[in-house]
């Protein structure tokens, strides 16, 4: 498994990596102190397209969330282990290789098997007609290519809120 990088602490220690301020008028993108969500982001399987996931990592970080970026070549086991260890509020997967119908449900099943209720958010290239299939399989939200930063951050917040509501 790859070295886990803590996006926030990395920024604090490394210093120079500054990606600018979130637009002030955008509520979803404005950092909030009360609910500091912890999100595990990973590429599941062999697919190496990590551009989108890295952008999402920075979007969520700028929106005030703590991002635990696992990076490439993760398994359902390694992601569940990280989510458990980090007490994650959500798991974000990025998929570009047409493997989503196999891999995303496997992720949801692995989370459930571990006795967790962490919502799984999927982004990347998922054809419109597959979205319902993934939702039926228990994926919390599917974000398509071209989703804005606001939509990404809000989708994660909504997924966490929905999971908490159904758990309580």
């Amino acid at each position, binding site marked *: 498994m790859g070295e886990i*990088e803590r996006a926030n602490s990395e920024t604090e220690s490394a210093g120079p990596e500054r990606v600018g301020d979130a637009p002030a008028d955008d509520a979803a993108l404005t950092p909030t102190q009360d609910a500091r969500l912890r999100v595990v982001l990973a590429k599941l*399987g062999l697919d190496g397209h990590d551009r989108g996931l*890295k952008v999402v990592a920075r979007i969520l970080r700028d929106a005030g969330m703590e991002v635990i970026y696992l990076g490439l070549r993760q398994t359902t086991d390694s992601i569940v282990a990280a989510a458990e260890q980090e007490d994650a509020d959500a798991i974000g997967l990025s998929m570009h290789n047409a493997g989503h119908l196999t891999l995303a449900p496997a992720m949801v099943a692995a989370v459930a098997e571990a006795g967790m209720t962490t919502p799984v958010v999927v982004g990347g290239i998922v054809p419109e*007609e597959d979205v319902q299939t993934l939702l039926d399989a228990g994926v919390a939200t599917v974000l398509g290519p*071209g989703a804005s930063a606001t939509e990404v951050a809000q989708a994660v917040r909504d997924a966490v809120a929905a999971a908490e509501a159904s758990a309580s």
Partner: protein
Amino acid sequence: MTDRNQPAHSWEPDPESDSYRRYREAYEAAKLRDVPFETMSGVPVAPVYGDPPYPGEYPYTRGVYPSMYRSRLWTMRMFAGFGTAEDTNARFKAILRNGGTGLSTAFDMPTLMGRDSNSPWSLGEVGRAGVAVDTLADMEDLFSGIDLSGVSTSMTINGPAAIILAMYVAVAEKNGVARADLAGTIQNDIFKEYQAQKEYIYPPRPSVRIVTDMIRFTTAEMPRWHPVSISGYHIREAGSTAAQELAFTLANGFAYVEAAVAAGVDVDEFAGRLSFFFNSHSDFFEEIGKFRAARRIWARWMSERYGATNERSLLCRFHTQTAGVSLTAQQPENNIARVAIQALAGALGGTQSLHTDSFDEALALPTEKAARIALRTQQIVAHETGVANVADPLGGAPYVEWMTDEMERQAEAVFAHLDELGNGSILEGVYAGIENGYFVGEIADSAYRFEREVNEGRRIIVGVNAFTDGSEGEGDILRISAETEEMQLKRLTEVKQRRDDDAVGRALAAVTAAAASPTTNLMPPILEAVHTYATLEEIVMAMEAEFGTYVEKAII
């Protein structure tokens, strides 16, 4: 008063000048296509306009050949492949029946990563994005009934490239074709895997040793083979700027040259068979400046720094693909216009071959119809626009020349940084840049800057953050059936039952032994191993036992 019939400035080269005579001589020696070189209205046009150095002359800013597309249009090389080896074989035969001579092979994700179809990692990926190759048997099916001495084959694979090349040689030799007669290209550009595409297996240094072994092997035994296609395409797709794509790609090229020279190969013996692969994105003039700068930089560095004297060693010949990342899922038909503009930039930039993306690729692998429109798009550029009549038609335009210089200036700054990182060695500088996260950090910063600009509306993407009215629905998309995976698994099981396991074991031990001996070329033992029907993953693991694996530091 000026005479209105006498232009103030002659745009045509002075026919009496020594430079133009020299150019004409080279131009006239070239064989030309049998088409009229005139405008649509019948006005004859010259092969080149503006100032020397002309196309085909050092430093080749204006093109690698004097006559450019008047002799031969760029090769319309469309990259494709999915399903089983038999499916792709049928497509290859159709291409050959239609007069094509170039085959281009896409492999599925497990093959690209050196995994067999029955690996747990391969679940859901077998045959999805390319053809699955587990053993020599799959390669035999892939090229069954095709005379490999009469085709040129491009294989897009990197981490396990040595094994795939060995399988190709083995298939040819089983069919009585000598390896010396094989023509083609294998991508085999491992540096950009650590920087962008992320399909690496071993750590950088052993991986580069495999690349140099392949350069040595092909230089000695496969004179028609291009052992590395140095690729900026993936660097750009991962989010770099145009100048970063240019700089990182050429730096990687210099690094391979240094590695091969250090392994004892004379620069002029192999540099002429290195080729490049660039992206063509939507900023029209920036792309054209990038292509022109690439030729000039490569020629200068090969000549001045690496002492190449053979002209072919100085030529930056490249393939271009339009920018997949520019395609939008929203209003996907708009992508046809994007691809046309990017293809035009490639042609005006002097590319040797071109792949045009299909408009539906932001949604899934292309449908046949979308792939046909993509091919037609570049045929329109080639045959209807007149851009193929004149070499470097934009050369001499102030903006284009400035942009070319600017691309070169930015690239030189990167080379200086890498040279310093590597204490006077670009090769060591590239290793250092991989290890310290320089490349991935630069690329991620550029990607995020772009996304923010789009998100804040400072950069308009039509149909995404502006002009969003209109059909957002999807049309047909290509589906790969799950049967492919089952068939491939069955085939792998059968091959493993048929083979001589003792012979496989001995061959794999020989691969591991060769890996442990840095001066031994890995290609001969890998060839032996593929002949025993050892699987791709078994051979990968035989080297991994010695080389270890690479896990990148997760940097965002």
